[in-house]
């Protein structure tokens, strides 16, 4: 009885420690996002008085008004939408870069998924050594870092004279094997009997694909689209190599080049750039988690 009591107490203590551990990590994890969003609602003067020491330009005249240390604050002295107003209505260059991101990422996501739906059905329904080798090739390609894949991408772009155009990022992105890999893994789990039943009923492959495989894979396709979208929304390497014109850069690269004088705006632009990802996350966290879970283990 006494022992049971001690054990229970120990368990409780352990759980309290676990909770404190989780809570402190939660604070660290939320900190950057929350502070960025909070600071986007500060006026230009508040931003420069808080962070002047970090982002100040060299003109010494202004320094007298600036505090010695940075001052990270969660709650603005005065909630102001002036930064958003400037970004949205007065300086169109940021909105243009946001549009660059959209126009690069959306077609890649849509077409990569379309091609992957077809290919993954093909891979899931084919047997044999040749298929195994080809699929293995896809896995290797998927795991290759940019340091490797950007060299061939650059060569192709040069051959086709599409350097400095969106095509140079679209095309390798569309044919990138990630979704093929993920959806094939999912489709292989569909019981064969389902396909065979449809075949006996006289359905052709195209019909089986559309009427049987696609409806079952709806959730997986959505999970996969989320993972592709956030990966490309965060792209940095490809534009640096394939675009020489910085006007074409997506916001994911351009944000770091924001002028020191516009640091107040930077928080607002950074927040706007987070919004699509966070919205997807709020509405479909379960799909994201499922998508990651399918990846646990490389082989099909």
């Amino acid at each position: 009885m006494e022992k049971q009591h001690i054990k229970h107490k120990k368990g409780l203590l352990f759980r309290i420690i676990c909770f404190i551990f989780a809570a402190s990590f939660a604070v660290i994890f939320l900190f950057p996002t929350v502070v960025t969003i909070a600071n986007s609602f500060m006026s230009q003067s508040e931003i420069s008085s808080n962070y002047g020491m970090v982002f100040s330009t060299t003109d010494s005249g202004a320094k007298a008004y600036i505090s010695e240390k940075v001052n990270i604050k969660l709650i603005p002295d005065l909630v102001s939408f002036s930064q958003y107003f400037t970004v949205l209505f007065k300086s169109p260059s940021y909105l243009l870069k946001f549009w660059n991101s959209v126009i690069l990422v959306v077609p890649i996501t849509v077409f990569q998924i379309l091609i992957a739906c077809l290919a993954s059905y093909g891979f899931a329904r084919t047997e044999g050594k040749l298929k195994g080798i080809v699929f293995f090739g896809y896995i290797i390609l998927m795991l290759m870092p940019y340091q490797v894949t950007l060299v061939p991408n650059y060569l192709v772009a040069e051959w086709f004279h599409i350097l400095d155009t969106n095509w140079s990022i679209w095309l390798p992105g569309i044919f990138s094997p990630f979704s093929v890999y993920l959806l094939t893994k999912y489709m292989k789990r569909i019981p064969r009997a389902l396909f065979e039943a449809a075949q006996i009923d006289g359905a052709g492959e195209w019909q089986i694909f559309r009427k049987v495989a696609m409806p079952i894979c709806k959730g997986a396709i959505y999970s996969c689209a989320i993972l592709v979208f956030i990966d490309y929304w965060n792209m940095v390497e490809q534009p640096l190599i394939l675009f020489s014109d910085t006007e074409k850069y997506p916001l994911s690269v351009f944000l770091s080049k924001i002028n020191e004088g516009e640091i107040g705006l930077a928080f607002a632009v950074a927040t706007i750039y987070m919004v699509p990802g966070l919205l997807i996350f709020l509405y479909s966290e379960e799909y994201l988690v499922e998508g990651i879970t399918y990846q646990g283990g490389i082989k099909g």
Partner: protein
Amino acid sequence: MKKLKKSKKHTMAPFLAPSIIGVAIFFLLPFMVVIFYSFVDNPVTKEWVWFDNFVRLVKNNSFKRAVKNTAVFTAIAVPLAVILSLLLAIVLDQKIPGKSQFRTFFLSPMMVPIASVVLIWQVLFHYNGAVNDFLSTFGVSPVDWLKSDYAMVAIVPLYLWKNLGYNMILFMAALGNIPRDIIEVAQLESANSWQIFWHIKIRYLSPTILFVTIMSIISSFKVFREVYLLTGDHPVTSLYMLQHYMNNMFKSLDYQKLSAAAILMSLVMIVLIGALFLIENHFGKDVEE
């Protein structure tokens, strides 16, 4: 029977063709050319020089520095990423309040573009920044972190912040897959929770631990992204990464070195991926029986 199989293959061709043709044109064929370029003196005269390009590459000081820095980063960041994400998954496996909220919080950085939070990192790690401000209360003299030899100290947390959630989800799934009855039997035989953790859970988790380790190594090669967004084209030497080297080679159009570097990198990757497959085969039998 054989005929049936053949006809089946035939009907699959239209499904596979778009992807396979695309991969061939945009990855496979140009990669062959990359291999060719790595063995010739230059793309115009095309004189076969065997391994000269590779020798020049590995003797190149900037390349050596880039490899060293990338390796140092991987060696620091990957163990931390594996251990911390496993700890988070174990903590969320306990009966504590707010579990699903915690999972949401830990996963949220995955959805936030790095570019959106570099400002905060600059505020934290600047010479006049918050980290130095905090350390100065303990009498530590300020360091301009991003321009110092300790620049990794600023980069590693950013990498962890972004990647821990993903690993944690993989570990949580693996923890959920451990058969309950085995744990119950162990409890009946009065094993304590430490023994259950060490002898049962870790054993069942080991394939996932290895998978996460190798995936983290692969993702650690992408850390250029964080470094570039924080410090631009020309970081301090302690942050000069492989991708910086590649970018410079692209700028000077040095195809031979680019190709040789890409081939060397891909060889390293193939070894890693091969290890991943062997491990999966080995443990797959062990655990799934």
